[in-house]
C-alpha cells in the first residue's frame, strides 16, 4: 500500500477502531479482510473497523468505498462522534490547534465542536433535519447555536444558503416534511454549511434519490466543496459518486482498509484482489 503524504492536512485519523462486544487477545488476528469476516468466532464480537489511518487536506474529498457492512459508515460516525470508537486518534487542525483528540471529547465539547467545525450530511434527511420545522428554521438552528441573535441576519443567511443549494426561495417558510427527497437533501446540505465548517462528512448523500435528482445533488456538492475549500469525506457504495466527488479513496473490506489510492488509479488499476472484484462488479 503506497503511503501518500498530504501537505497541511485538515483531518488526521490514526489507528481508528471500533469493536462491538468484548475485546480479547487475538480478536484482530481472527478477523479482517484476509480471514473473510469481521466477526470473531470465539467471542461473537464484531470488529467493525480497525487500524484505519488517513488524512484529508482542505479542498480535498476523500472517498470511502466498500460493500455493505464493510465499516465505512462506522468510520464516519466515529469521527462525527455519533458512536463512540474503541480506539484511535482523530485531529482537526482547526480545532484547538489540532491538539485535541476528537474521539475523547466529552459530549458537550463535541457538540460545540460540531457547531462550526464539522458537519454531517446523512443518507436519510430525517436524521440531519427537523422535518416539522421550516427550511429556514432548520438553518436557524445551527446559526442560533453559534450565537446568531438577529432575526433578519438569520433570514439573509438562510436565504443565501438555500439559494446556493438551489432550493426555491418561495419554499423557505414551508416545513421540510412537505419537501421531496431531493429537496430535503439540499436543505440538509444548506444546513451543514451554515457555520462554514472546515470538514463535511457525507454518508451516502445521494442514495435513495432517483438518478436525475442525484446527479443534480452531486453537481451541487462538487461545486460547494470547491467553492468553500472544504475538506470532505464521502462514504458511498456507488462508484459513480466516488468518481465524481473524490480525488483519493480508501477501500474497506470486513472492517479493514485494503487499499488507499487515487480514485482514477483505483478505477483503472485496482491492486488489492477485493478492490478488483469491487471495481469489476461496478463496471460490469
Amino acid at each position, binding site marked *: 500500500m503506497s503511503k501518500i503524504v498530504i501537505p497541511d492536512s485538515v483531518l488526521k485519523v490514526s489507528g481508528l477502531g471500533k469493536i462491538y462486544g468484548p475485546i480479547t487477545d487475538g480478536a484482530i488476528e481472527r478477523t479482517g479482510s484476509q480471514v473473510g469476516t469481521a466477526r470473531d468466532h470465539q467471542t461473537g464480537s464484531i470488529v467493525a473497523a480497525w487500524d484505519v489511518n488517513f488524512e484529508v487536506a482542505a479542498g480535498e474529498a476523500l472517498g470511502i468505498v466498500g460493500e455493505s457492512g464493510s465499516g465505512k459508515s462506522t468510520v464516519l460516525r466515529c469521527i462525527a462522534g455519533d458512536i463512540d470508537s474503541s480506539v484511535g486518534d482523530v485531529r482537526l487542525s482547526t480545532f484547538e490547534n489540532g491538539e485535541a483528540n476528537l474521539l475523547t471529547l466529552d*459530549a*458537550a465539547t463535541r*457538540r460545540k465542536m460540531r457547531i462550526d467545525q464539522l458537519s454531517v450530511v446523512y443518507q436519510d434527511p430525517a436524521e440531519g433535519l*427537523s422535518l416539522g*420545522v*421550516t427550511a*429556514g*428554521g*432548520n438553518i*436557524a*438552528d*445551527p446559526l*442560533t*447555536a453559534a450565537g446568531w*441573535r*438577529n*432575526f*433578519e*441576519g*438569520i433570514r439573509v443567511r438562510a436565504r443565501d444558503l438555500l439559494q446556493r443549494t438551489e432550493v426555491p426561495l418561495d419554499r423557505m*417558510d414551508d416545513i421540510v416534511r412537505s419537501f421531496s427527497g431531493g429537496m430535503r437533501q439540499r436543505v440538509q446540505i444548506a444546513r451543514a454549511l451554515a457555520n462554514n465548517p472546515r470538514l463535511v462528512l457525507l454518508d451516502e448523500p445521494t442514495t435513495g434519490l432517483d438518478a436525475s435528482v442525484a446527479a443534480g445533488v452531486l453537481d451541487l456538492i462538487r461545486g460547494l466543496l470547491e467553492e468553500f475549500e472544504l475538506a470532505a469525506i464521502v462514504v458511498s457504495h456507488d462508484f459513480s459518486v466516488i468518481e465524481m466527488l473524490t480525488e483519493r479513496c480508501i477501500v474497506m473490506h470486513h472492517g479493514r482498509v485494503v487499499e488507499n489510492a487515487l480514485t482514477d488509479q483505483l478505477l483503472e488499476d485496482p491492486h488489492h484482489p477485493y478492490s478488483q472484484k469491487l471495481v469489476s462488479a461496478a463496471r460490469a
Partner: protein
Amino acid sequence: MTMNAVHNGSHLDSIVGEDPGIPFALLDEESKREIRRALLHAVCVPGYQVPFGSREMPVARGWGSGGLQITLAIVGKTDIVKVIDQGDDEGVNAVNLRRLVVTSTGIEESTEVVESTIIQSRHRIPEDEMINSHTLVLQVPVPEPLRGVERDMRELARMHSEADYSRMWVSLYEDKVRNGVITQTTGYPCLVNGRYVVATTPIPRWDIPRLHDSQFLTLFGAGREKRVYAIPPYTLVEPLTFEDVPFEVEQANGAQCRLCSSSESFLVESPGTNGDAGTWTCSDTAWCRARRIK
C-alpha cells in the same frame, strides 16, 4: 397474625399514640425542611429546576399544590399572606388556598400588597410595588420551558446542562415566520442570570419586566411536576428575543378600566352583549379598588 393485630382497633390506637393534632402549616417538619432545602438550592442556582418530593395536598395537583407547599414550608408565625388567582383575591381557588394557609397556621391574611409578606399567585404579579420584604410564590403548571420542543427528559436535562437552547430560538424564529410576530403570551421564556432558561408560567408578558432586577424573591413551585425554581432579588432576567425583534408587552390600544379608568395596568376584556364592544377591567382587583377609593 400481624394482620389480626392491625385490625384490632385498640391495638391500632396504641401504635399511633395520642393524636398530635394538625402540625403548624399542615406539613410535618421533615417535609417542610426538605422543601426548604430544595428552595435554598433553587435560590443558589437561579433558574435551575430543583426536584423535590411533592406531597399529597388537600388540593388536587395542578390546582396550586406546588405553590401551596412552598408557602407552607416558608411561612412563619408573623407572616401575613395574600393569595390571588387571575389578580383576584376573591377567586374560588385563591380563597380556598388562603383559607388553608390561614387555618393551619393562625397567621393574618390581607388583600393589600403593602401589608403582606408572602404573596401566592398563579397568573399575575400584583401591580403594586413589591420590595425586599415580599416573597412572591408562583404556582406553576409546566415548569419545563423546553417541553414544547423536546419530550425526552434526559435530552432536556442535557440541553439545560449545556445551555443548549438553540431549539428554543428556532421555535421563536418559526413563530415569527409563521405569524409575523412572536405570539407566545403567557409563560414567556426568559434567561435567568445569563444561564438557565425558565418558564415564567403562566404570568403574562406584561409582568415579565417586573421579574428583572426585582427587589423581591420569586419562588416557583410545580406540585404535579415535582420541581421548584427561583429568581432571587436583583437577578438579571432577559426575555428571549431577537436583537431586531423587540420584546413587547400586551397592549390594549386605548382601553381603560371600566371601574377605575386605568390604562396603565394589565386589563382583561369581558365580552359585550348583543354585539356591543367588550369592556375592560383591571386584572388586579385590589389595586383597582384602591384607585377608586383615592
